[in-house]
């Protein structure tokens, strides 16, 4: 408690406002107005194009409610549809159909209550991990494409047969809007009261690999035999990164304490330490974590982002790991995706602050902060909190927004202009 200082206002010298500042005198005020207009736009993504989708077809129904719509996992299905999982009072599974006659999110259903969907992977089906308190499980989602294979039309009425969906879809370019979605099933519960931090899938071997949340136990789940097996802890002191990556050979990578990379080799069926260490800020090695991974499927390079906000490149066949840099002045790289042209897009930033989109262009060795995500379609919205990403079939990048009200952000990177024709010939 203190007395307010006596306010002696009469003898104050007050600062000048811009229109009274000599620098902006006369016509100079126009310069000020121009600078201000540029300044106001400069914080936001200004190259490419940004859109958002609510988590539901807003023309017909309400989206997934606030408090249930934080998008915490995304995966691309072979059809090009994007499947997503949410976290909150209820965890939903949804899909987004990017085709122009759909272009909306459909809420497939609720996976569980007071739950977080931590990861999604896909082959013929969608597989996911969910955790709630000290419990976790793996689930599968069979889209209509899969269910159609087992559809028995015998004994069904005409309308029933005609209405049978051949795929998950949203269709509203006709008089009767309709949508279809498949079936969610629990595959297995995680033993020893643990959740699941992350999943990757070895589509060739039909095996899902994962990491438990508390003890950091590496596990595998065979899709064909439906068996779950623990492979051991990735770190003896349980200091590990919650994210995994898998390369085209089926080798899984993750980070143990201090950012030491481990690997799981499927042929050897063994967890191994490696000599690779994820780059960190000096003195923060003990806190080092990999926040996100993305794989360039073209050349097999893995990109990772750390809790320090450092982007790095890990090339296992070449035996190299290198720091690319720190794209923004915040901690965390919360989401990463490699675009169709090899550029790496990511979102960094700390919870409660203001995330930025960044890009790494390997050809130019250029790392750039692109700014805050802001969209006006389908509704004006800022992307302050982003926690997952995936690349769409046509090279667009999807970002999952977390917080009380989550949206699906879609970033369309700019298309580079082709080089001018030489001597007028193309």
């Amino acid at each position, binding site marked *: *408690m203190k*007395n307010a200082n006596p306010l002696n206002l009469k003898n104050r010298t007050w*600062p000048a406002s811009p229109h009274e500042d000599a620098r902006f005198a006369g016509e100079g005020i126009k310069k000020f107005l121009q600078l201000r207009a540029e300044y106001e736009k400069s914080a936001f993504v200004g190259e490419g194009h940004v859109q958002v989708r609510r988590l539901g077809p807003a023309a017909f129904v309400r989206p997934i409610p606030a408090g249930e719509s934080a998008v915490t996992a995304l995966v691309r299905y072979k059809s090009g549809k994007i499947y997503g999982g949410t976290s909150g009072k209820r965890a939903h599974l949804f899909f987004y159909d990017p085709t122009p006659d759909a272009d909306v999110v459909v809420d497939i259903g609720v996976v569980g209550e007071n739950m977080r969907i931590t990861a999604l992977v896909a082959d013929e089906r969608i597989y996911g991990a969910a955790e709630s308190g000290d419990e976790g499980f793996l689930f599968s989602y069979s889209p209509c494409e899969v269910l159609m294979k087992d559809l028995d039309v015998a004994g069904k009425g005409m309308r029933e047969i005609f209405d049978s969906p051949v795929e998950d879809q949203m269709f509203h370019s006709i008089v009767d809007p309709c949508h279809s979605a498949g079936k969610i099933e629990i595959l297995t519960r995680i033993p020893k009261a643990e959740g699941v931090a992350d999943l990757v899938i070895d589509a060739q071997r039909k095996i899902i690999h994962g990491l438990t949340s508390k003890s950091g136990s590496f596990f595998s789940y065979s899709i064909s035999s439906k068996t779950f097996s623990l492979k051991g802890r990735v770190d003896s002191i349980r200091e590990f990164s919650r994210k995994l990556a898998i390369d085209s050979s089926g080798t899984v990578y993750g980070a143990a304490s201090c950012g030491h990379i481990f690997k799981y080799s499927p042929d050897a069926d063994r967890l191994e330490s490696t000599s690779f260490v994820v780059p960190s800020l000096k003195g923060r090695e003990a806190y080092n974590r990999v926040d996100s991974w993305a794989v360039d499927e073209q050349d097999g390079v893995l990109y990772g982002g750390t809790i320090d906000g450092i982007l790095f490149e890990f090339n296992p066949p070449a035996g190299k790991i290198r720091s690319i840099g720190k794209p923004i002045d915040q901690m965390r790289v919360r989401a990463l995706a490699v675009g169709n042209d090899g550029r790496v897009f990511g979102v960094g930033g700390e919870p409660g602050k203001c995330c930025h989109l960044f890009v790494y262009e390997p050809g130019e060795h250029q790392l750039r902060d692109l700014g805050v995500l802001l969209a006006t379609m389908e509704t004006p919205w800022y992307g302050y909190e982003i926690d997952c990403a995936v690349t769409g079939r046509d090279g667009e990048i999807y970002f999952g927004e977390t917080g009380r009200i989550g949206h699906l952000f879609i970033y369309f990177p700019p298309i580079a202009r082709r080089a001018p024709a030489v001597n007028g010939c193309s």
Partner: protein
Amino acid sequence: MKFEAILFDHLPIHDTCWSLITGVDGMLYIGVCGEMTGGLSAFIASYDPHQHKVDYHVEVADVLGISPDSGEAAQAKVHYSLVTDHEGILYGATHCTGAPLGDWMWRPWNCWTHPVKHFRASGLVAYDPRKKTVLFTDWLMPHEGTRCMAISNKRRKLYGISYPRNHFFVYHLETHQLSDLGCIGSVNPQCIFLDHEEHAYTTDDYGNIIRCNGDRDELEDMNVQIPHASFRNGFHNVPYDVAPAPDGESVYGVTWTFGERLFSYNFKKNKLVDFGKAYGGEVDEWFHIINSHVGGLVFGPDDRLYFTANIPAAGGKSTPHLVVFNPDDGRREIIAEITYNGKPADHISRAAADFDGNLYFAEVGNRPTKLFKYAGAARKSGTGKVMRCWG
């Protein structure tokens, strides 16, 4: 002369009065702000209707410990975030838009993580005007301002909305703990209002009413949307100003610009009545929000609703006019254009009434910034004071 101007001329550079409330002592309390010039502090000032005297009580940045030359974004604004409790203690929370000293523009997104120019947080000041004592200060949402605020006296809570992330928060006055209830949209509503049980109300981006249940501190959808012009889809149609009605079970409000609608909301029945365009015909242009602006809602001693509407004048500029609305028959009439020294005011943010039934309107956008006093509302016998618990 319909209006008497009350000038804050000891603050010659300050340019806006966003908050104006009536204290339990019958004084008018005002947040005097300086937005267009970097490095200013907001002030809490008062006007004594009987002594016709302006006093400057609190230099907000100073009591928050932010020196003008700190280089930080200025604590220059108390937006719709000045409230009083039943004991007469004032609570004011700062908003961000003012640049650091020497800078001529500032935006939160540009400076969120700037090591010097960032906005530290919304500063809360609790001030006892009788003892002229600052009881405590605190920091609310980090890096964000408070756009609007309400006080629950019986629950001893402040309800607020942050800018720019638009989070609804609850501040517990006894424990000084803040609960962030999360994002409610991308556009700040300009008002939180309370019902008789002191649950708090505001809207999402599309004007859908959200209630913060005061018992549980949870946000609930009320399945009611405040009205919007037929040519709009509801986006950005958030409440601009809301006044408590004398009936004790409803409020009257107006939406934020561009075809602004006047409505009443009965919180006991969860029922909304649309009174259509607040005043006049629809305006086709949307050049600037103050060309289509309604604010300064207050019930007069005659139980009629007074508000100001910017109405297009010759030359294209819209100027504020005082309008009175009769809730019994829905009729509106213009009382007068609001002018000072023959020049029209810019626009009006908030209004309040003193205990004698005089009405006051806070101006935004001119220097020196000022209130306009209107003494022409007739007193109706038996009319009681309606205290407003929000900014």
